[in-house]
């Protein structure tokens, strides 16, 4: 179990409170009318919502992995964190080169990205 405290309190309780608050913000962000904010930033409400959801998902992800899954604060946390990060390369490949491509990717890629144009 954890040998440290967060703000002088039990880390698991603090983590739990933090996660509950962040989730509440997520749900409220979806229900809230963000049209005014979106217009002032020159974009759509959906884009603002997506940014809020993404920004909140990152600390939630880290809080669960670091505190609940003991990737922080234990003797073996370092090597297990490296193990956990191992698929990051795979995730990067899948998200960037599969997830974010589009039907015209093969024809609209810059020349230097296409076969036979490596400048060799």
């Amino acid at each position, binding site marked *: 179990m954890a040998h440290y405290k967060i703000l002088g309190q039990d880390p698991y309780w603090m983590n739990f409170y933090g996660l509950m608050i962040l989730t509440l913000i997520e749900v409220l962000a979806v229900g809230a009318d963000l049209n005014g904010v979106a217009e002032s930033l020159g974009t759509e409400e959906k884009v603002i919502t997506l940014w809020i959801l993404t920004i909140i998902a990152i600390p939630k*992800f880290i809080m669960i992995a670091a505190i*609940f899954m003991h990737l922080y604060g234990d003797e073996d946390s370092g090597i297990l964190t490296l*193990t956990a990060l191992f698929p990051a390369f795979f995730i990067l490949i899948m998200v960037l080169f*599969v*997830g974010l*491509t589009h039907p015209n990717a093969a024809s609209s890629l810059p020349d230097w990205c296409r076969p036979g144009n490596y400048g060799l």
Partner: protein
Amino acid sequence: MSAGFAAFLFTLAAAFEWGDFIGWTEVPLILASLGVVFFGLLIWWRQDWSYGVDGKDSKHLWEPKSAGSPFQNIDIRKVALWMFLMSEMMVFTSLFSTYMRYRFGIPNCMTVFESGEWVEGTAVTCFEPAAHLIASSWFHIAPGAINTFALIISSFTIVQALRYAKMKDIEEDVRKRKVMRYLGTTWVLAILFLTLKMIEWFIGFPTPGPLTDLNHGHSEIASLYAEGYTINADSYQHYAYDTMYHDGKDIPKDSALYTMLQEGTHPGGQMMANIQVSATTFYVTTGTHGAHVLGGIIGLTYMTLKAARGGYTPDNAVSIEYFGLYWHFVDLVWVLVFPFFYLY
């Protein structure tokens, strides 16, 4: 067990086509493969059932350590579990990247509707995010939101179960009771999660009378199935894709459809959409996550029963720790599934 599980998935997939059951001949194989899985579980649990109960034979409780670099002196089972979780991460990454690929590659149904590039009676292929239905009112989003809180609370209760199992300065009976209660609470929350998922997918629920205004005046929240959001929906019709809905007041004035309707170059009507891809990515991803929750429920059932026998002591609490890692991972995946599949 792994072979049985693989055979189960293979035969189950062979028995269905576009959501319709077609393969009675596969049923014996499905049952046989399930039998192999449960026989494996039975053997495993039979060996574990008396292990470390009430601290008996605590001198003989033994957890093998890794000897080689880089995991020297770390429990082998813990390392193995992390390896398993990382392979699981790759599975979910594949599902996420597939979702992103189609989400960005196929035009959104609302965009197609507003472009006016459709005619009534002919289906157009477009991407209809489940969030269009789920995030349309506070009532629609309620099951998913409650599930999110349920999973976070269950992540906390499993941590508490481990904390009490490892606590040395409490009486045996108190420890037994606390561990059992926290594991039991986790089990109840997991059951709640799947129940709400079934309600959201297949059943729906009535809106409380005085609050129907918050649900656009409707007295019932229809399930996704009842809304026609299915993997074989090639002629999906949503009320929002009707030029007569709200007398067309919802159609943006700067859209091509609005201009066409004003000029009389578009006949109007209700757009029909082929949303098989979007529904499939939604059900496969959230269903895979739900299957993990179901697996957790099976494990929790056994662990709660064992906890009632005093099976978890400070010398023998690693099973809760390792199950906890798996359960937190399930929560972690939901942290990403919920915003991107349910809210956006």
